[in-house]
């Protein structure tokens, strides 16, 4: 039986280091190639030795697909392609291809230049790796080779995030990457057609959460910022460079525009400026509003948001500052935080999750006194707010996507095991389909039952179609024909044609059956009785009384002969061809029951 095998090398019952191997129809595809944020040793990259020891990956993998530019989905790419060795095609969308190298370079700088690691990929390797990338468009079917084709769907989440359908013959797998089913201020919602894949590999970060409407969150956020600014306070929003940062920028920018506010908004420079450039370019990847209005004004050309300079932090009066990094553990955001923490008019809004041990985590858990380096203590008087702006689908969203795609089975990755368990059970219960959640290195196997396409002769098809009402597309229908398997191809043709092609002559198969009945009448009268009897019973068939002393029902012949010794016992000879088997059998049983007693 044909089967599809899925093996997560990362992201199996885990978040981070997404890397999934899929074997489908004899092809091997790697989906995402990410790194793990939590580790600094070998564990940060997927274990490619699972595929092969000491040799290049090229011969084992047909292609690699990257869903979006987050490092946990593409961080290990240069390592895999340049250090382990892979020369095949790498597919990603245009925005991903544009932004991915920026992030990789940044990541490399931090690890090599700041932490001083060696044996890490170099800038050149990133460049070489990007040369192997083939960019794809949404809904464009890309033929990787003769049999393998992939197609990208919009996924929301971040700019350029895509879901991919991998198809070999009639078997297919959909990999969602990270996706978002609720649209936000700059991105639309994920969408897929009813492609009915054999396996849907879905992320499940929020498997056990159903989120509140985004409007409440937005309103809360804006209200808090607005109130603080009106009071004359300063607002610090520590963010990661890409993704949510743009979302919040758009949110504040439109709000400032609408409300005619004058307080300055700053964005700490660096990565973001480069990235914003790409956001301006890839307008088609954003949501309806931005796409429709960019002719008048590109929403990413901010009117109120300006570049930040260190000296601005001491400026009097209200202001809003976006600064990296998002967890307040170092850099500019921490620097500004230290300056502003003492004033109760100020506010810091944490828009994302903070790892334990960071300043962000401490202040979120309510700590009012922080110990800084050099034995200083910092009293936190400013207000601390937490707002969650996440761009993953929640449990409802995941279910919605499954409903949209109608897969034959689901495979969950990119989530915690315990949460997956819940979702798995729900999926099985509500859609009545199989659901897998393999751990890293574990293989999930699905047996597929692909259809075998057969060429049918047009004449045969037309003949069959003419027989009855049009075929119901939902139901299979039986038909007569001859299947010819020749030269590695399958054809369904009419029997006559098959005979002709094969040079065979047609054999006739006839059944005959004798039925004895008791009837005192003469042969001729018996025949007449039979004729009238059949005529009354089988109204829908043509029944003929032939002059040569036989009755024809369709093509079935009935003859009557009387035995010489016992004239009242008549022997009926019924003969039919193979095609009329059903009717013939019926006739026999009918005649065996005897004829009705004619009163005449």
């Amino acid at each position, binding site marked *: 039986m044909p089967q599809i095998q899925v093996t997560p090398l990362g992201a199996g019952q885990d978040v981070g280091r997404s890397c999934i191997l899929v074997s489908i129809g004899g092809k091997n595809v790697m989906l995402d190639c990410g790194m793990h944020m939590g580790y600094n040793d070998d564990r940060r990259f997927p274990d490619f030795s699972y595929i092969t020891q000491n040799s290049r990956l090229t011969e084992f993998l047909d292609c690699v697909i990257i869903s979006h530019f987050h490092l946990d989905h593409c961080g290990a790419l240069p390592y895999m392609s340049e250090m382990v060795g892979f020369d095949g095609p790498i597919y990603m969308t245009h925005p991903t291809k544009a932004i991915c190298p920026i992030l990789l370079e940044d990541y490399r700088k931090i690890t090599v230049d700041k932490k001083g690691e060696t044996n890490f990929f170099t800038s050149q390797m990133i460049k070489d790796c990007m040369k192997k990338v083939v960019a794809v468009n949404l809904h464009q079917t890309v033929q990787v080779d003769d049999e393998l084709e992939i197609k990208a769907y919009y996924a929301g989440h971040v700019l350029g995030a895509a879901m991919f359908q991998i198809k070999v013959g009639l078997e297919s797998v959909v990999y969602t990457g990270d996706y978002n089913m609720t*649209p936000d201020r700059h991105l639309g919602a994920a969408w897929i057609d009813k492609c009915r894949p054999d396996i849907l590999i879905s992320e499940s970060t929020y498997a056990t959460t159903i989120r509140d*409407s*985004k*409007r409440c969150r937005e309103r809360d956020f804006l*209200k808090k910022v607005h109130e603080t600014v009106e009071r004359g306070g300063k607002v610090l929003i520590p963010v990661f460079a890409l993704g949510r940062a743009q979302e919040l920028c758009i949110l504040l920018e439109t709000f400032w525009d609408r409300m005619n506010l004058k307080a300055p908004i700053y964005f700490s420079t660096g990565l973001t400026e480069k990235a914003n450039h790409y956001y301006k370019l890839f307008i088609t990847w954003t949501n309806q509003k931005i796409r429709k209005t960019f002719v008048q004004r590109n929403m990413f050309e901010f009117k109120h948001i300006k570049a930040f300079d260190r000296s601005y932090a001491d400026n009097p009066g209200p202001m809003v500052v976006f600064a990296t990094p998002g967890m307040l553990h170092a850099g500019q955001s921490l620097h500004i935080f230290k300056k502003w923490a003492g004033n109760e008019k100020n506010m810091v809004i944490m828009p994302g999750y903070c790892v334990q041990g960071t300043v962000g985590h401490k202040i979120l858990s309510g700590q009012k006194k922080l110990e800084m380096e050099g034995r200083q203590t910092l009293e936190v008087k400013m207000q601390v*707010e937490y707002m969650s702006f996440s761009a993953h689908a929640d*449990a409802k969203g995941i279910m919605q996507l499954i409903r949209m795609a109608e897969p034959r089975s689901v495979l969950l990755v990119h989530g915690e095991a315990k949460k997956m368990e819940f979702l798995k059970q729900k999926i099985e219960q509500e859609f009545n389909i199989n659901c897998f959640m393999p751990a890293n290195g574990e293989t999930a196997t699905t047996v597929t039952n692909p259809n075998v396409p057969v060429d049918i002769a047009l004449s045969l098809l037309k003949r069959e*179609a003419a027989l009855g009402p049009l*075929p119901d597309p*939902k139901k299979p229908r039986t038909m007569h024909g001859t299947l010819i398997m020749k030269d590695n191809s399958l054809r369904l043709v009419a029997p006559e044609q098959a005979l002709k092609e094969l040079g065979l002559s047609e054999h006739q198969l006839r059944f005959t059956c004798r039925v004895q009945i008791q009837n005192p009448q003469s042969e001729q009268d018996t025949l007449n009785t039979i004729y009238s009897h059949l005529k009354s019973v089988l109204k829908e068939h043509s029944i003929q009384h032939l002059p040569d002393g036989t009755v024809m029902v369709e093509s079935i012949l009935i003859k009557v002969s009387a035995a010489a010794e016992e004239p009242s016992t008549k022997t009926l000879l019924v003969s039919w061809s193979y095609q009329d088997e059903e009717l013939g059998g019926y006739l026999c049983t009918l005649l065996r029951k005897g004829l009705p007693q004619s009163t005449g």
Partner: protein
Amino acid sequence: MAAHLKKRVYEEFTKVVQQQQHEEAPAKKLRLTKPSKSAALHIDLCKATTPTDALQYLLQFARKPVEPESVEGVVRILLEHYYKETDSSVRLKIASLLGLLSKTQGFIPDCIVDDAINTLNNEKSHQVIAQLLDTLLAIGTQLPENQTIRLRLVEVACRHLTDTSFGVRNKCLQLLGCLGSVDKPVSKELESMVLKDVQKIIGDYFNDQDPRVRTAAIKAMLQLHERGMKLQQTIYSQACKLLSDDYEQVRSAAVQMVWVLSQLYPESIVPIPSSNEEIRLVDDAFGKISHMVSDGSWVVRVQAAKLLGSMHQVSAHFLEQTLDKKLMSDLRRKRTAHERAKELYSSGEFSSGRKWADDAPKEKVDTYAVNLIDSGACGAFVHGLEDEMFEVRIAAVEALCTLAQSSSSFAEKCLDFLVDMFNDEIEEVRLQSIHVLRQISNNITLREDQLDTVLAVLEDSSRDIREALHELLCYTNVSTKECIQLALVELLKNLTKYPTDRNSVWKCLKFLGARHPTLVLPLVPELLSTHPYFDTPEPDMDDPAYIAVLVLVFNAAKSCPTMSALFSDHTFRHYAYLRDSLSHLVPPLRLPGRKLVSVSDSSGMASSEESSQQFLRQSLERVYTIQHLEAQGAQELLEFTIRDLQRLGELQPELAGAAEFSATYLRCQLLLMKGLQEKLWNVAAPLYLKQNAMASAAARQILEETYKLEFLYSGLETRQVAIVHHVRLQAKALQLVLNARTSRGVEPLLSICEKFLQEVDAFQRCFVAELTHFQDSFVEKLLELMPRLLACKPLDLVKILQTTLRQSGFLHLRLPEQLHRATATIIEPTGESDNPLRFTSGLVVALDVDATLEHVQDPHNSVKVQVVYPDGQAHIIHPRPGDFRNPGPGRHRLITQVYLSHSAWTEPCQIEVRLLLAYSSSKSRTSILKPAWNESTDGLPATENSIEGTIPFSKSVKVFIMPKPTRR
């Protein structure tokens, strides 16, 4: 060669399709009078040697209409050619032409039915068959009465339903939907024919393999429903299955189908699959349609959201589910922000706010009980309101509105969501949700936290949003005095930020005060900043903010007599001032020590209106006695009545329209009377000049007034229009007579006479139905004499006119029920500013114009802005359609920018800005009433009938401008 031929065939085929499409649009206008079309066509077609030529001829032929008499002949020729034609594209064109021809007005196509069916039987090409079926459909719709033909056509359609081409099946289904018999046959002869169960036949094609056919089947079914056939309930399950079809157009049609059935059988019971429970069909359908709100295609989502709004019979339990989305975080139940806000409110604690994780999830959720994709209506609106496409969001908001209007408990629930929509990224959606909230505001009371969110929008920079919000606040109920204070503070903030909102804010506070007198009462000392012991300084009377506060307080005081005790002395003085200056905002109060100026409780109002109506009636009746009076007395009577009516109009705004209309009409009569005064006509020839000047001025003025009468008032009936036209005719007759007396020579007179006669003729044709009311009038007499008039010489005509004019009686004017005068008030510019608008001459400066228009029909086309410069130059500016808003029935708001430019002046000067109402008599109401009129007047030159003009209908506003010379 074969390949080449094939290519050619395809080429031609594609050509046909294109041309046919663009051919269909103009085809409806069939009006031309050129005989022997058929013969010409015949020759053309015979000449054609190749299919391409034939096609060209046919296309040319199709451009010109055919008169009804010759249609049949043309059809015969076409059919003849059809049988001979081998090329399918030409046959297709002929088939489509047959359809077009059968739609010719006045042609009864039953004679070509047989031929069309015959051709259908012999046709092989699927496309041509489809086109022929389309033709049959056209024929069938032309003959709605003929049952036999319909049955035949239905039979033909049934026969072709098994065709392999989807196009043919589509057309068959369409035909069945449009022509299938809706009710049982009545006559005997029809009963003999096999009546097909059209519903069943169409229903079979719900499962067709082609999505286009499935769509057509559902649409045909819907068509049957529209034509009045009761659909069977059995379709419901089929339709529900189609909701999960792969193709969006099928789903879209299926949603409609389910909706229709839910309206037909709301109360019947359907089982829930996978359980043995049963629910009402409308609830089930509601659940299913709700489900479609999260469909993959936004077209379907819009449709589903829209339809949800019209399902009023759904039970409350299901309805409320649409707003429910059980939140959960990490498998624990979580309350929504809305619930938290409500809880905070009810616990009396306001936004303690910033506790870390105060939204932390509480109890554990039973994993088995959580239903992630509820089959029910769960969260449909939550999804709809969060949708990516604003079309869906707007549809959802509208649906919420209609549902909330019918259920107050639902209104209460959806409030939070609507308030949330105030923050939508697209202004249209924000505006819509504000409007919706206003519409349902009778059912709800805003909580403080909700009001807070609502008020936050007051700072929006879009004027529309702010004004919509003011409108909303006018109708809002709030619960506590803090709310009132909050609203006042925010409105004042709004006022300082956007001073142009002054009027709107005041009006808003007026209603707010009148609605919540008891809540305002405890706030009064604070609002007026009075102190029990100390005198506080008197606030500045010109401060808009102070006026705003006073408006709030005074309006509250109206129904709260104790409030005035809290006022300080200057408040009373300010009251007197404001009562005079802003009387529309400040109500009359019963203040201690003061006499109430006018008693105006509601009963008094009603009675006064009644009495003034009576007065209006009486004055008009009195005027009718005029016939019996001497000229002098008649004129005096008219003058008095006109004066009375004008005063009445000023006093009674409700009757202003009627009073002014009748006054203007009477003025016309008065002028006419003066113009025809016997004394003048009897004077000697040398004095002609003087009296002529006077009379022709009168005639001109009458003409002007009649245009005002016709176009400035809304609510006129044909009868009044006829009377107005009659007066105009009289004025024209007067002009003609005057002309005849002054001009020498017959030549110029001839054309004027002819024109006049044509006008009389046109009048007769337009107002045939009204002529009965014109007894003893000018026109009636004229029409009696018409045969004579047509024959006689101009001078005789003039004589006849003169006598008829003077003998004709006075027409009674009966006023219609509702009569309103179009008015416009320019709010902006105010004309108060002394600072001239400076700009460099030669360049332009934009002047903001803001005006309210009342009772203007179709303002987009008729309202213009006129700018008059001091040197007499006048410019007319056409505002863009987008500049008009429609805040209420009969009201419009014009917010536009007028671009001014002029060469340099030495010192600032005033320009005048006013609004004009443009009219054109060809577009007068008569032509709307009688659409056929246009067609029958092709003899008359169009220009003569249409007189374009403008009526100024607003006071002009003066604006200082100062163009400076360019600096070099």
